[in-house]
């Protein structure tokens, strides 16, 4: 009762990274709240899920195993969560801010009349004072997210309704095993008790889901290009630098919108969040929505011909110059000195 739940997203029998990241965060918050961490898996042939999630510190794993539950469709997964939550009364529930979590979350929150905050960038526990009613709420979930096109950061709370629900994008939280030895309890759910047959009204006819080839999120060095790179042709320079350094290439939204780079490479609030060892920002001005996705990089180098570019404020090294001039020199002097 009143525990912290994470909905596990599963593709081909594998738990997605975003769910593991949420389990990691969930474990820390559950410790703080002195409650249990519980996970729900819905799909088909889920025997291996336990092995995968218990090391993250899951106390109880609920499994709904049924051929009709994979691939994901909205209504059956919604009914499962709604009915399970009615029984278990979790205080907090997390899901990924993915095409699944953002399809499922609002539906569940509407059915339970519980507030949901999408795309949180930070989750904390704290108190809240409702001044109008003179009431203090202890240990609420602070759902922190940029709002209003990223111009502000808002802290949202749900004082009265449970569960307090939030979605988080992949890569925003860190993924970390608690201990490889941990084993929790598994509860097999009787699917017909939770999901009416009438829920199977949407049928998936065709499906092509590709594993992402790109792995910007886990790359320890990122060479990112902005609108200032000027062209897709000039982006090749960045690829050359990335190849030389063993890095991955990222991009700002302006660069993606201009067609210089693929959407998959976008870094920032509406792209991927990264925290590499080294981030080289080439021709990126550093608008808040971009910075939101890379400010935790251990070291930032900014290359910009405008000495006053806003990104310089968070850079460790500011190189004032043009991409065309600076990038080839970096390649040249790396090669010369790396042997």
């Amino acid at each position, binding site marked *: 009762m009143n525990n912290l739940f994470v909905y596990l997203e599963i593709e081909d029998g594998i738990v997605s990274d975003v769910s593991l990241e949420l389990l990691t965060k969930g474990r820390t918050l559950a410790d703080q709240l002195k409650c249990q961490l519980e996970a729900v898996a819905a799909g088909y042939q889920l025997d291996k899920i336990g092995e995968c999630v218990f090391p993250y510190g899951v106390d109880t794993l609920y499994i709904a195993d049924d051929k009709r539950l994979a691939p994901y469709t*909205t209504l059956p997964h919604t009914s499962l969560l709604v009915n399970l939550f009615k029984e278990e009364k979790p205080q907090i529930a997390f899901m990924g801010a993915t095409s699944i979590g953002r399809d499922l979350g*609002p539906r569940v929150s509407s059915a339970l009349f519980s507030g949901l905050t999408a795309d949180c960038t930070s989750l904390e526990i704290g108190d809240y004072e409702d001044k109008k009613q003179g009431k203090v709420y202890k240990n609420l979930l602070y759902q922190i997210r940029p709002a*209003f096109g990223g111009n502000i950061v808002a802290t949202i*709370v749900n004082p009265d*309704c449970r569960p307090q629900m939030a979605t988080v994008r992949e890569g925003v939280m860190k993924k970390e095993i608690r201990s490889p030895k941990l084993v929790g309890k598994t509860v097999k759910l009787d699917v017909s008790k939770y999901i009416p047959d009438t829920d199977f009204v949407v049928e998936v006819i065709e*499906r092509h889901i590709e594993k992402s080839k790109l792995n910007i999120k886990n790359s320890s060095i990122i060479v990112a290009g902005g609108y200032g790179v000027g062209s897709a042709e000039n982006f090749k320079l960045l690829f050359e630098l990335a190849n030389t350094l063993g890095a991955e290439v990222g991009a700002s939204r302006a660069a993606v919108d201009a067609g210089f780079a693929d959407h998959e490479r976008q870094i920032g609030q509406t792209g991927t969040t990264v925290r590499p060892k080294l981030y080289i920002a080439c021709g990126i001005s550093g608008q808040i929505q971009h910075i939101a996705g890379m400010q935790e990089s251990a070291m930032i180098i900014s290359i910009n011909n405008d000495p006053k570019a806003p990104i310089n*404020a968070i850079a460790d090294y500011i190189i004032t110059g043009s991409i065309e001039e600076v990038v080839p020199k970096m390649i040249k002097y*790396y090669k010369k000195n790396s042997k």
Partner: protein
Amino acid sequence: MSFKIVVLAKQVPDTRNVGKDAMKADGTVNRAALAAIYNPEDLNALEQAIRLKSKIAGATVHVLTMGPARAAEIIRESMYRGADGGVLLSGREFAGSDTLATSYALACALRKMGKIDVIVCGRQAIDGDTAQVGPQVAEKLGFPQITYAEEIIDCTAKKITVKRRLERGVEIVKGSLPMVITVNSSAPDCRPRHAKLTMKYKRAATLSEKQDAGDDYTNIYNVYPYLNIPEWGVADIEHDIQWLGLSGSPTKVKQIENVVFTAKESKRITASDQEMEDLMKELITNHTIG
């Protein structure tokens, strides 16, 4: 056969151009301080609705928007592009709504609009970026939903087939009507205004707009009833007041902060050969690269 399509469209502040007075002290948006535009993905939704209409004999497209008086612009704009009409849902009681209270109010208005076959929404609105209202309206009405739609491929009296665009691929799904569909920005752009329709509907107005303008063309509204844009308030919809506005919103804004970044101590370098070589050497020596 009648086939009713309703588009949910929102007028949003243009968050791409925000000034300092954009937020009020209570954490809600000061809409008056910003330019108002048609939410971009709702235009993608409108386009899908108009295309669907053209494939089904007797189909109609109506737009429902909830917002202040000036949101009537959304309905006119939709009519210029091919919608048959729309409804503005407006009133003080709706102020301060979060996504649940918004979807409750929209669901009440949709029930009043009669039997609906397909509801088309944008995936998300750029002011909140929540993408919640579509699925929540669907839940409130007990309709199934198909989110992240890129194209309505086929539709019969009972079934609709939709191509969805997901993070890493596509899915084609088929479901039964009535259905709520939310449309992605990867769907085709909306057609531009149609010159003849723009001429025909440019005087379309809500009652309060006519009153504000002190319009003495009352006659034309009697002769051309399609120029009257219905404006509904709480009194026009069947509702339970506690689910509207602030009281119907479980989420509360605790705090709003402007974003400030603490400046780092940084080192400035020029692009000279000497300084570039020194930098690369330093990065290699301290094992940042290599």
